[in-house]
């Protein structure tokens, strides 16, 4: 529902009428019904043939103007922090002892391990990723419930890298006006040289971005040395190439098209929001009717009202997605707050109060318009719920991490056959027992099986300790599968299914891990 029609979605589910000042989301159903009536009445509005619609729309190039202010400073700060983490994190070392990688953050695919500072995740513990994804989703929902598209405006990689690329562009091609003018000139040496320099810089940033990405998957200093001497594996160069291309294309060329056409989040967040969520808003109660300084003076002379908005379009010029915030909530608006800075600067110049554009809710704007009371409700059912889910899942993950053992035990009962009768009538069950040893040295585990008195426990290829329990040696940082056979000579009830407890006892006598299974009889 972008009124200028330049950057709205091809298939965005959106309202048929533009959001007028003074209109809330809840008014829209009625407004849309009005629109239907209006449309029916004005037959002349229809083109003669619907097939005349254009099949595609060219992108309108956006020249975001430079801006200074609170939100710009905040965005610079976040850009430095987030990109700093991304580019330099792989170089941080973390001592894990002998035979273990000393990189703080490492996704070791060949070794099937993920290292994050003091945490080491094995593939079978990938459920931590589920928890992490739940927390990430809830954090996104919470941000949205508190203050709209905080993620989109400040933290999304697309936004951060585009910001960086725009800064480079501005540095080389000049600010909005200069760049616009130059683009209208015929190609000459100056224009060509600047364009070349710009794309070279973009490609260098993109290349570094791709290069940093692969450092998370191998020892960073070694990989840098290998890359420099062209000894790195081909897949490393392949991924650098791929990420160089995507960074260059998405941050250099696609920019707001990614947010408007490709990203699902604007649609999701539009469905998740409510009337109390703060959003970057144009306070039309103050701003309307718009009038230039001269016109405002003239209006006042005649005793007519004039709003604070001087219609200078600065908010539109600084917008990285080319949106006019004064048209109300908009799919293309990533809520980066740059229009707030632009407007504040203008308001200061003309001697009016700042924050004509600000984080606010439509409810409050209407309340002010009608002399009502404004209210900011951060504690709402949804914010409490999102926070609670984050706390619960985070707590569960922390508890699980804190109490996990250096070894793990998994039992799989033989499925076919479930049991075997021996020649003397004894009944035997077999199990595949997986033991994971997360320590950096070999561990000898004694296997205890309880629940079936007098049963014989045998492990293929293992010795027994003096107590007659099988001893299973598992190498450092390894998993071993052994076949365990439990035999009983006792008479069993028909269809017996007896619970068994498997435990592995470490060398110091402590129970390392336990697991449950069953002994099945005929």
């Amino acid at each position, binding site marked *: 529902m972008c*009124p*200028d*029609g330049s950057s*709205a*979605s*091809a*298939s*965005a*589910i*959106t*309202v*048929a*009428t*533009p959001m*007028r000042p003074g209109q809330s989301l809840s008014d*829209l*159903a*009625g*407004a*849309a019904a*009005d*629109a*239907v009536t*209006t*449309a*029916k009445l*004005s*037959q002349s*509005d*229809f*083109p003669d043939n*619907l097939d005349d*619609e254009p*099949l*595609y*729309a*060219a*992108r309108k190039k956006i020249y975001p103007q430079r801006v200074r202010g609170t939100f710009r400073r905040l965005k610079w700060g976040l850009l430095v922090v987030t990109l700093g983490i991304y580019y330099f994190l792989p170089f941080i070392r973390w001592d894990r002892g002998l035979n273990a990688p000393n990189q703080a953050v490492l996704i070791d695919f060949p070794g099937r391990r993920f290292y994050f500072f003091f945490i080491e995740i094995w593939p079978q513990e990938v459920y931590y990723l589920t928890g992490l994804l739940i927390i990430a989703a809830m954090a996104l929902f919470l941000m949205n419930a508190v203050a709209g598209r905080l993620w989109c405006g400040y933290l999304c990689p697309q936004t951060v890298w585009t910001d960086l690329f725009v800064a480079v562009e501005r540095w080389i091609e000049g600010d909005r006006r200069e760049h616009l003018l130059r683009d209208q000139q015929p190609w000459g040496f100056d224009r060509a040289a600047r364009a070349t320099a710009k794309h070279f810089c973009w490609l260098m940033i993109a290349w570094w971005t791709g290069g940093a990405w692969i450092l998370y998957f191998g020892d960073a200093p070694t990989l840098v040395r290998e890359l420099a001497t062209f000894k790195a594996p081909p897949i490393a160069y392949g991924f650098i190439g791929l990420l160089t291309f995507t960074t260059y294309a998405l941050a250099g060329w*696609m920019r707001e*098209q990614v947010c408007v*056409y490709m990203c699902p989040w604007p649609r999701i967040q539009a469905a998740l929001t409510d009337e109390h969520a703060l959003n970057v808003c144009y306070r039309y109660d103050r701003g309307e009717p718009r009038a230039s300084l001269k016109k405002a003076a003239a209006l006042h002379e005649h005793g007519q009202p004039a709003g604070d908005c001087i219609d200078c379009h600065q908010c539109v010029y600084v917008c990285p997605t080319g949106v006019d915030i004064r048209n109300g909530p908009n799919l293309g608006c990533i809520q980066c707050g740059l229009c707030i800075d632009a407007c504040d600067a203008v308001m200061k110049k003309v001697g009016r109060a700042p924050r004509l554009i600000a984080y606010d809710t439509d409810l409050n704007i209407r309340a002010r318009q009608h002399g009502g009371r404004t209210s900011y409700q951060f504690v709402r059912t949804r914010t409490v719920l999102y926070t609670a889910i984050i706390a619960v899942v985070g707590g569960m993950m922390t508890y699980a991490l804190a109490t996990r053992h250096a070894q793990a035990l998994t039992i799989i009962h033989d*499925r*076919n*056959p479930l049991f*075997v*009768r*021996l*020649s*003397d*009538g004894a009944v*035997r069950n*077999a199990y595949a027992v997986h033991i994971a040893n997360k320590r950096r040295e070999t561990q000898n585990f004694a296997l205890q099986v309880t629940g079936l008195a007098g049963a014989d426990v*045998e492990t*293929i*290829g293992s010795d027994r300790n003096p107590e007659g329990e099988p001893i299973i*040696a598992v190498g450092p940082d390894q998993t*071993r*599968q052994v*076949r365990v*056979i439990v035999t009983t000579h006792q008479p069993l009830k028909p269809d017996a299914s007896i619970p068994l407890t498997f435990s592995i006892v470490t060398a110091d006598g402590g129970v390392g891990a336990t697991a449950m299974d069953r002994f099945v009889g005929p």
Partner: protein
Amino acid sequence: MSPQTKRLDQTVRKSESSRQVATTGHEWDGLQELNRPLPRWWLWLFYATIVWSVGYWVVYPAWPLLSSYSNGVFNWHSRAAVRSDLAALQTQRASMTNRLAAASLAEVESTPEMLDFARALGGRAFADNCAPCHGAGGGGAKGYPNLVDNDWLWGGSLDAISQTITHGVRSGDEQGRQGAMPAFGRDGMLKRDEILVVTDYVRSLSGLSTTAGADLSRGAKIFADNCAVCHGPDGKGNRALGAPNLTDQIWLYGSDSQAIIDGIWNGHGGVMPAWSGKLDPVTIKALTVYVHTFGGGE
């Protein structure tokens, strides 16, 4: 419905905007779907994928010809790709397979790393080749021996298992296991009443119930005259001939009277193929260890 009203239904115009945008005509609680034109770059991408697809025709086998197909400039072939993947895998495993080839069966089983490797390799080979008859976990079926229990027709030592896998049972291989249960009834060697009596005697050997009033001493006589040659005078079987032990609780063809009568009347002679020509020696070695470590190995 006139074309005009139809169009009215299908399209709703934005009443206030200078630029009018059609909708798809779908409406949910007053929310409508705008029918915006596609972005131009999307259209370019679409055309680019069409061009890209032409590349596949050139590079890969694509077009059927009269007697063959277009080969593609890379001469890539899915079967060749599988072959090279297999070769790469074998190279990767070479250090372990070479160790396995050089070691004796007992050595393989007593060295943990070789045992783990042999069980992994043997498990795969078992699933591919043996499971159709012996079951996924070696549990067997009627007529197909259970390999997990501790009863063996031809012996459960490593060497005996290896011999059975390599040369098979009644497989036509000269070194294969020979010996079959004759069809005593069909070929007229025993009369009906004799078979009934000896069936009761055989059931009595492993403590199963017998027909009331059965003449077990006559059964014992018939057994001694006809069956003891292979199954032994005490019915404990003979592994050289693959004659099962009749005194234990394991029955390949079932222990009920009908199954035993059927076996005596028609005979038995299950067949297992010789695997020496189909599987390489290392795989047979791994299979031997795998079967031996099911739990019943001797």
